[in-house]
């Protein structure tokens, strides 16, 4: 390499370095702007829900930055004294908790059978179940409403729970099967040789080992059911609806009254957001393992 070449290279690299530095700063600013942009809609609703309704009707939520005196928790106060809302939150819990527990239990049993037991046609059954992952909920709306009507659980909490359990199962089986099949065979074999039955093996050995996977699944299913509106709209008791449906009814009635909708939407978001921030890791792993729903 001649000396001129070296000089040229050095110059280039200095120039590239400066360009890279400038680009780096520009990129950081760009990312900050994007993050603010992403936060704005939520911040808007939060601040709107904290404003005096009379003011909120007249001007934008960003006015609170110049008029902090407009902030008030009246909206939340009213909301929490509103029985429709508190009842519906309770109904949501009443639907979400059993639907999550059932999916975990039934999904784990099936996942265990697919991963740790041997029976004819096992792989075909498994593919069939996993194939059901993509079946749109919409396909089942009419038939299941008829079916539930016949057995008398249409528009009851039980019906909603069963529906969510069924549609959560393919994902549960898929996720847990993948996890169970990573458990060392030697461990299961040893337990079997020691005379442990399959049920014992399942509850005492496999389930405790599967903690992380079950956590992911439970969080995923919990958020899914908590946030659902469509299924509840059809299958829940319209006199005793979960929070999403209750809010939707409000949205129909008071189309632009952000003082009713804002606090309501935020209350409905608090639990999912708390779960999300507390269990980000598990949530993300659920999303990644599934990448389907």
């Amino acid at each position: 390499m001649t000396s001129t070449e070296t000089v040229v290279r050095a110059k280039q690299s200095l120039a590239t370095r400066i360009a890279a530095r400038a680009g780096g700063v520009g990129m950081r600013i760009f990312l900050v702007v994007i993050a603010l942009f992403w936060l704005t809609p939520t911040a808007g609703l939060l601040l709107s829900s904290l404003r005096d309704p009379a003011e909120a009707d007249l001007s934008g939520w960003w006015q609170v930055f110049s008029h902090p005196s407009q902030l008030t928790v009246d909206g939340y106060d009213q909301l929490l004294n509103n029985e429709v809302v508190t009842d519906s939150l309770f109904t949501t819990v009443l639907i979400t908790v059993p639907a999550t527990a059932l999916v975990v239990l039934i999904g784990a049993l099936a996942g265990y059978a697919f991963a740790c037991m041997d029976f004819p046609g096992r792989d075909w059954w498994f593919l069939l179940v996993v194939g059901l992952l993509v079946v749109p909920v919409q396909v089942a709306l009419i038939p299941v409403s008829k079916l539930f009507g016949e057995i008398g659980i249409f528009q009851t909490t039980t019906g909603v729970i069963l529906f969510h359990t069924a549609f959560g199962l393919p994902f549960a089986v898929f996720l847990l099967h993948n996890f169970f099949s990573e458990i060392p065979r030697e461990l299961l074999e040893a337990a079997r040789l020691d005379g442990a039955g399959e049920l014992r093996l399942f509850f005492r050995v496999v389930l405790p080992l599967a903690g992380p996977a079950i956590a992911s699944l439970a969080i995923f299913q919990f958020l899914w059911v908590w946030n659902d509106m469509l299924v509840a709209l059809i299958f829940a008791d319209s006199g005793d609806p979960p929070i999403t449906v209750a809010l939707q009814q409000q949205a129909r009635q008071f189309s632009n009254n952000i003082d009713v909708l804002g606090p309501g939407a935020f209350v409905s978001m608090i639990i999912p957001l708390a779960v999300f921030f507390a269990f980000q890791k598990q949530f993300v792993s659920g999303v990644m393992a599934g990448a389907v729903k």
Partner: protein
Amino acid sequence: MPTPPAGGAAQPGPRRSPHEKTPADADEATTGSPADSTGAEDTSDATPTPNDEGETTSTERTNGERTGNGRTDNGRTNGGRAGNRRTHSGRTSGRRIAVRRRVTGSNPWLAALFLLPALVLLGALVVYPIVYSLRRSFYNAADKKFVGLDNFQEMFTDDAIQQAVTNNVIWIVVAPLLATALGLIFAVLTERIRWGTAFKLVIFMPMAISMLAAGIIFRLVYEQDPDRGVANAMWVSVHDTFVEPAPFERANPGRQSPLTESGDGTISDPRTLRAGSPVRIPLVGIPRDQIGGAQHAAAADPQDGKVTGTVWRDFTRGGKGTPNQIDAGEEGLADIEVRAVKGNKVVASAKTRGDGTFTLSGAADGATLRLPGSNFDAPYNGADWLGPTLVTPAIIGSYIWMWAGFAMVLIAAGLAGLPRELLEAARVDGANEWQVFRRVTVPLLGPVLGVVLVTLMINVLKIFDLVYIIAPGASQDEANVLALQLYKSSFGTDVNQGVGSAIAVFLLLLVLPLMYVNIRRIRRERRR
């Protein structure tokens, strides 16, 4: 090093940089310990070992399982009695796969018991509905008469449903692509930034909230009034930066004026302009708050060879002023564009000064005066986001706000698993960052991008809540999508569950190819 498997996103990345260990980070996301060995196993599977006689390649193994369930390769259990377990030291000489198969529990009845609850629920609430919908889609609204393909025909001729199909096509093409592109950009840009995790958290957060809450959030964002909706507030301020707002929106000639106003707001003076004789253009209808602080109007001085004049607010409080006269205390109108027109050609133009006076060149002699309507336009009020034309793009925007984070997290995980050596090699060879991104990163991420796109497509096909909540009644028809139409047809006011079932079947047909892609991917992942 092998390329990452198709489901690479779900595999732990072989490389971990220390700062990536924080929560919400894709790299950390794979479920706990046992699964962490997956990557390593895949590596060994990519190169079949020569002594693998029975099950040389994974394809063969799967085929074997497909044809004969009772088949007893030397590695597999021959089903049946529980006492049939063999020990590790059997014929199969320690092949991992074989060992795994052999020692599993093997009582089909017990397995059936474990599977029973799941299969009953899936059968009754997922499989049976598919069959029911198929049958139901061939019957009429009352479910009494077989109508063949009539429901499907109605689906493709009914205006509302056609709108839904069109919108679904727009959705499925635009939304997944944009969300994936944004996710890719965010993932690549944040890869080496220390606060990248915080950024990802912000972008990913909307995934946790319900579509209902997102819908309420975006209804507020898209509020028409720029004083309330943030989208229009931003849009109007951008617009007004480039297009100057009209100075006096409601000004008009008044009743006793010689001037005339045409339909587009243009005010014209029928009198012919003469150089050296100033004209007076009186306007009324300007609210006080719009003119606060304006200078007093002045009569224009006559100038040789030029046309001069005054535009002013011809109004004195208490009705004391004389119409068409510049009375003391009346304000001049600044910044108004004045044009001299001959025939239909503009021969001269000027803007009024602070005191309302203007000067036009000599060319204006013999022309007539016109004040273009743009002087008096109503202020720009922003886009009608939820109106008929923009409603679908606006809702797609809210969807992307929710789901770009999903794409970002999956892509970031894929990115963490890319072989660094390849990227470094490209850089050493002189490729710039863009070339590395375009020619190395993106092709290597191909499988992950595919997974993200397919997943989002399946998701978009089923989109319901966002449209239902965001689209106002007036433009809900324009925003219609299949899932919403299905809800309306099945449970709404004009119920025809035959058509509803036909839409359901159509939706199912649309996800079938995607289901196939998914199953193929899962099968590929299962081959170890």
